[in-house]
């Protein structure tokens, strides 16, 4: 009898005590690992998707914007409390929130907002009157609320070492360029202190290393290869909508590709469906448009089917052609596969594409064509197109900011694609895996991750 009692006691003492989970808990460190790496704090849009992902993750949690988007993509007040427009959306007024503390210990001023916005939007004329900010533009900006919610319009000051200083819930702590960023809780954040004490982001980690670290409980949140439907590590897998664009971008004014027939021939030679089914494992979508279907709803208007005979007909009259160099990111395995497949397709049309890997320390500045992988970062058509235009240096796409109807937006995109200087290939999602100790995970369909409302269980 005594033995039974002892066994019962032992069993009870070993029985796990259930967690009470609903209410968020303060404290702890979230350990994040990503592929991208940054060595400085640049607010301008980045042509490299993995770096852009990291930049957006840090930026959106360190610096606020005038406007934020809710999960449905609707504009909501942030540093601007109210707004109105005049002159057919050429003039916009924003009332700046009062008493917003910055991580530098000062208070946000309209002048600081003007400085931040003017640097990123040279076409806007901004001035302040009291706590009201006036933005004027020569052309209508009907989608200005979405523009202001984009990462590059974050209201950031520059600290002593160039690091971002904002009003967001987390502030930049230790920074080891290319290796690690530590974010610390900002106690005086106007929306309240975040639940986490710290976020430690390890940069430049391969998918395999990240998965191994999650498996061995050395990481709480990692990126995952979006083309793999079976997660590489145990945890909860989350996908965004297809938010990254793979495209071929011809170098402007390059003699090797001056003839539009070469570009069109290459475009028609691409077998997007096999790239999608074989290389992307049916994740994302093959696409001949810049905007993915989930943003535009009209990507089917851009014909994406392979037409090798048409490609040859365009190519053959051109006679002998020099090989075209095609560069891609050496750290991106998927980009390598897509580049090689594009070269294979081009060969069928009689065009020689030579894939060449490049990285930040070794770039092919004379490349004829680049395989780009862009992070779109917004659910808004106009904001996304103008961002692509800025990164790929296509001024025509800036017209999307003034496009007020779907037809006008379609016209801007069609016009930018008609000379085949940019050839979209596919849109792919992003994927993350988080440990079971990470709670209240919140990610928008366009990949914005809110770290401030997330919390972690203390180690057991």
């Amino acid at each position, binding site marked *: 009898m005594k033995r039974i009692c002892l066994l019962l006691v032992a069993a009870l003492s070993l029985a796990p*005590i*259930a967690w009470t989970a609903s*209410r968020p808990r303060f404290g702890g460190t979230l350990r994040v690992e990503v592929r991208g790496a940054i060595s400085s704090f640049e607010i301008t849009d980045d042509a490299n998707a993995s770096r852009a992902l990291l930049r957006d993750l840090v930026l959106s949690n360190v610096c606020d914007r005038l406007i934020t988007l809710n999960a449905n993509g609707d504009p909501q007040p942030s540093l601007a409390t109210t707004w109105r427009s005049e002159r057919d959306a050429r003039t916009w007024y924003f009332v700046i929130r009062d008493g917003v503390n910055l991580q530098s210990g000062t208070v946000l001023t309209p002048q600081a907002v003007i400085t931040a916005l003017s640097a990123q939007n040279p076409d806007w004329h901004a001035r302040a009157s009291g706590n009201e900010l006036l933005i004027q533009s020569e052309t209508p900006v009907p989608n200005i609320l979405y523009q202001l919610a984009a990462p590059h319009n974050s209201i950031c000051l520059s600290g002593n070492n160039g690091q971002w200083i904002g009003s967001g819930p987390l502030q930049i702590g230790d920074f080891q360029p290319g290796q690690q960023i530590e974010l610390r809780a900002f106690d005086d954040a106007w929306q309240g*202190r975040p639940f986490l004490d710290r976020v430690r982001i390890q940069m430049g980690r391969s998918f395999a290393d990240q998965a191994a670290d999650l498996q061995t409980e050395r990481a709480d949140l990692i990126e995952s290869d979006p083309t793999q439907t079976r997660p590489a590590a145990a945890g909860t897998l989350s996908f965004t*909508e297809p938010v990254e664009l793979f495209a071929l971008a011809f170098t402007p004014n390059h003699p090797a590709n001056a003839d539009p027939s070469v570009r069109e021939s290459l475009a028609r030679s691409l077998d997007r469906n096999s790239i999608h089914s074989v290389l992307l494992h049916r994740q994302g979508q093959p696409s001949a448009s810049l905007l993915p279907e989930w943003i535009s*709803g*009209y990507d*089917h208007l851009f014909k994406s089917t392979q037409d090798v005979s048409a490609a040859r007909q365009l190519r053959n009259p051109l006679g002998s052609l020099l090989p075209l160099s095609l560069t891609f990111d050496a750290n991106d395995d998927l980009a390598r596969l897509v580049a090689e497949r594009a070269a294979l397709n081009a060969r069928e049309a009689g065009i020689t594409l030579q894939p060449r890997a490049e990285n930040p320390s070794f770039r092919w500045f004379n490349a004829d064509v680049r395989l780009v992988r862009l992070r779109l970062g917004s659910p808004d058509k106009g904001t996304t197109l103008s961002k692509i235009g800025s990164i790929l240096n296509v001024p025509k796409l800036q017209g999307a900011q003034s496009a007020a109807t*779907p037809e006008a937006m379609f016209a801007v995109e069609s016009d930018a694609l008609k000379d085949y200087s940019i050839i979209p290939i596919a849109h792919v999602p992003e994927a993350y895996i988080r440990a079971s100790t990470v709670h209240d995970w919140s990610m928008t*369909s366009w990949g914005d991750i809110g770290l401030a409302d997330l919390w972690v269980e203390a180690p057991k």
Partner: protein
Amino acid sequence: MLKRTCRWLLALNVCFLAALPAAGQDFVFGTNQLSAEISQAVAPASASFSLVNRSSLNDSTVSTIRAGLLQALQSRGWKIGRPEGNEVAIAITLNENYRNYVWTAEISKATSREVRIVELVKGISGRAQADNHITLSRYLLVSSESPLLDVTLPEGKVGEGAHLLALTTAAIQLFQLQSGKWRPLQTQPLGRGPLPGRDMRGRIASNQSGGFDAYLPGVHCIGTATSSLNFSCRQSDDPWPLADDRQSLAFYAPSRNYFNGVLSSPNGQSGTVNAFFSAAILSDRVAFTNVDGHASVVQAGKSAPIAGKWGSSIAAVQSSCRTDLALASAAGDFQTADSLSAYEVVNSEFRPVSESMAFTGPIMSLKTATDHQQAIAIATTPFGRYEAYLLTARCGT
């Protein structure tokens, strides 16, 4: 005669599509809008017509839209026929983006191609109805777009003419039950904002003489609510009542989302427990959901863990057959649906005695009402609304 026929056909089209379920009215607009834009792009003539659905619309809705579009085009003078022999081809695609249905029309004539696009806002699907089983029942008090922190019933009952006080992050609202509906009588701003917080909490409790106290992080408001609201707020770290009877008070950590564990009571008794999110005050013990992730029960000064899978919101409630029940939310994140279950103490253990009552979103607040017979819960919905419920534990099914 032709005009008359066209009008009749358009009217028929409206009637036909109006009978569609869900967002039918949008589709009436959509078919008419798209047919008008097609006719504007190319003068009506003989044309072939094709329609592809790439959206989530079901087959029957698509075939109804197809019929509606054909009628609308014919009413505008288009003669729809086979592809052979027609110089114009109209290709319709029904698609969607994250926000809208997107219908495109490609009108091909010889070598030219015109594109027209119509966007239709997607309707919000009906929200899931939660089940309501066995012993727990609920009554929706009020629903609000702005965050509700807490509500209280000054008269302690729901009946014609009864009042309800709601505390939001910025104001106190007074409602009155008139003809079975809670009608807002007055909304008065707090005048003094609470300390900022990510998981903002608050408490409002009334007394029998028409007065009330409202508590937010760093703020205490005192006032009266009879036919109108009259109150003032001041900076304060006063302890908050844990239930509407105000018999137990606890100090709230103003820049966090929990009580710091220091307890107080109007009769001068005090004590300290671990920091906690909420408490269920039973006749001989108090259960706490602690910030360390565990639930515990304190009886006669001794604390013991609770081995139940509880969420962080708990409250005590009585029923006619059981004097001590604890209502507890379910474990889960704030993004997920929640549920409430009733537990009773048997041999010092909490055992479930009800089926769980489902909520479509997390329970943000739960407290015992003045009469101990009911509890008040605030829950959010997937669409971001805040709903206050009066909960009752009934015996039997």
